[in-house]
């Protein structure tokens, strides 16, 4: 169990409160009343912040309603037969082709041998240890020897990681800088999907960073592509694929990566 998921574990062990659903329903039902009360009664900066937030929410809501309406409209234009040959039984079907196109493009690419070891970002700027680590010197003993480090860059921490006792913990990976998902783009198809990260395969800076799961620009990560429906040549569902981080996650607050094909 990940260390911080004690609430989920409790629910798994003991279930929910018997009146959980009712409480949720009531909370939702009260929500509108609370919003209207806030909108009328808040004053000053808090009112300003509240209105800002509400404004953004309303924009999103309108967008969603519009999208929903568009979805319901039946298009009268006859569906153009696709460019790629399809058998008779697939002709009049609308298909989610994105992921599929992705997989076949990957396969086509793989046959070119030269492309096998090329990565989109072959070189990256070095990061010094001083920049990467902050010395932690809280407490007398720690302060004396200064052996404890805090990692200042975003990291990926595996699901089953449990922190070691304080005495033995040399590297601290802050919770706020941990990432579980990456926005992975296929370079040719220009399809971007958010996928769970499975592991950090290689950090070009330093093997130690690979071990620690540091996500910097140029890091090769393994992402879970099972929902894309990519199939291996043996007919099994492929689920791990490599991708390279293309942005600087420490500046951007997200991990963008490009699939290695």
């Amino acid at each position: 169990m990940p260390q911080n998921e004690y609430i989920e574990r409790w629910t798994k062990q003991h279930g929910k409160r018997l009146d959980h659903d009712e409480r949720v329903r009531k909370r939702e039902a009260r929500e509108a009343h609370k919003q209207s009360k806030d909108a009328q009664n808040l004053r000053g900066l808090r009112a300003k912040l509240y209105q800002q937030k509400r404004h953004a929410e309303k924009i999103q809501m309108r967008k969603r309603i519009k999208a929903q309406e568009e979805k319901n409209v039946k298009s009268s234009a006859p569906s153009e037969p696709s460019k790629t040959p399809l058998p008779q039984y697939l002709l009049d079907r609308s298909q989610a082709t994105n992921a599929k196109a992705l997989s076949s493009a990957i396969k086509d690419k793989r046959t070119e041998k030269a492309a096998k070891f090329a990565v989109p970002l072959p070189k990256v700027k070095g990061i010094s240890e001083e920049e990467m680590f902050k010395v932690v010197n809280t407490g007398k003993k720690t302060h004396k020897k200064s052996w404890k480090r805090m990692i200042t860059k975003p990291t990926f921490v595996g699901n089953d990681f449990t922190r070691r006792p304080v005495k033995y913990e040399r590297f601290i990976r802050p919770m706020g800088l941990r990432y579980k998902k990456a926005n992975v783009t296929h370079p040719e198809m220009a399809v971007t999907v958010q996928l769970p990260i499975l592991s950090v395969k290689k950090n070009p800076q330093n093997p130690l960073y690979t071990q620690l799961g540091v996500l910097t620009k140029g890091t090769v990560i393994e992402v879970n592509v099972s929902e894309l429906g990519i199939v291996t040549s043996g007919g099994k569902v492929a689920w791990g694929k490599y991708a390279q981080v293309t942005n600087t996650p420490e500046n951007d607050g997200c991990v963008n990566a490009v699939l290695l094909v």
Partner: protein
Amino acid sequence: MATLLPPPSKRQKTEIAEKARLQQEIESIPSDLGSIRVQFFDQATGSATGPAVSVPVGDATVKNLETLLNTLQGNDDDERVPYRFTYQSDNKDKDGQTIDILADLYHSLLKPGLKTTEDTVHLYFTPQAVFRVKAVSRCSASIAGHGEAILATSFSPINSSTMVTGSGDSTARIWDCDTGTPLHTLKGHTSWVLAVSYSPNGLMIATGSMDNTVRIWDAKTGQALGAPLKGHSKWITSLAWEPYHLQQSGHPRLASASKDSTVRIWDVISKRADIVLSGHKGSVNCVRWGGTGKIYTSSHDRSIKVWNSQTGTLIQTLSAHAHRVNHLALSTDFVLRTAYHDHTGKIPESDSEKVAAAKKRFEQAATINNKIVEKLVSASDDFTMYLWDPESSSKPVARLLGHQKEVNHVTFSPDMAYIASAGFDNHVKLWNGRDGKFITTLRGHVGAVYQCCFSADSRLLVSSSKDTTLKVWNVRTGKLSMDLPGHKDEVFAVDWSPDGQKVGSGGKDKAVRIWRN
């Protein structure tokens, strides 16, 4: 608290292991069980062959039951038929429970406690093919040639040495499957070839295309036989030849279904459209020509229509589906496709003998209770299938529920005992061909299953899928018999040769693959 036995010591454990290794427990039937009463029922008709007979439990093996049944049926020594026995529980709350008698009655029924020796056991029997098809296990040839994806494939009814494929590069090709080489390229269409079909005598090939035409080719030389058959205003979706025993000699006819919601019946020799069947309101996507002279069509307008092939009049409209009907299969598909070519490989000399042989084969296969019955099963986008007996009623015999997504393809086994259906929910399902009862689900594919095809002896099934593999299933056990990876992309078309030797497949990776055992 009761005393706990200490765990076995190491010596004890090694002794037990040694014993287990040396002597396999022999499954024997106890000899003191007396006898059991068995009554045989025909799976095809559901009627009993006679009164119950008493059989000693110790001797009630499948082999002995076969002999007994052959004697009861009055089969001569030289025409003994292998049978398959199933037990269907008459317990209403657990209906659909069918048990295959694998080795003997004791282990299948008595030991699990389903029946006792006091009861009368009702055994349903299905005659099996006297020949046996081996499961294909390896790719004997991967032939490049087509420039685009392969969309349709069909083996010659004569034997497994020639196959035709239609492709997105607007050609069809005839392949020599024995050597794995291309024989002829059928050039002429200007767009994708969507449907290919051998005539029942194996001398002509019809191809239907995206360019709205049908073309006829000589299967031996690969030459076009005259001009294209023009008339449809949209692409051709399906082709069906007139069954051999109904053809006027020298004037075979062909039915072509099209997206333009009509079906045209062509005189292949004079290249004229004899009859146009119009009545469907949506794209017609499957046509079948039955052995009793009826044409069955299914359409996007949710209906199935039955037409008279002589006059072109509508006989029946079968409507029960709630969404477009994707595919039709006739119980007699296999005999109609192969006409007078049977497993012995003997071809009659004269034309009249050929017609007689084809007619005899058809009647033999289709006769149930001294009546010619041609059953129809239809697969639809509403996730269900219906089993019809159009001759007796316009109401469906059964509704086949179970798929969780669109059902794309459905097929009858050559012996008519099973229906196999392939759906976009990654499963192939097996159903009883007589009453449409669910038998089992064949799980294993990880992508949508596009097509499936039975072997000639109905003991095996091959399915092709989006997940780039073919899988061969054992129909009897419902287990995967052989996994055939090799294609590099989706497999659109698969066919098992009528003599059972080879399987041909083609798909998006542009290569035709021939599989054999």
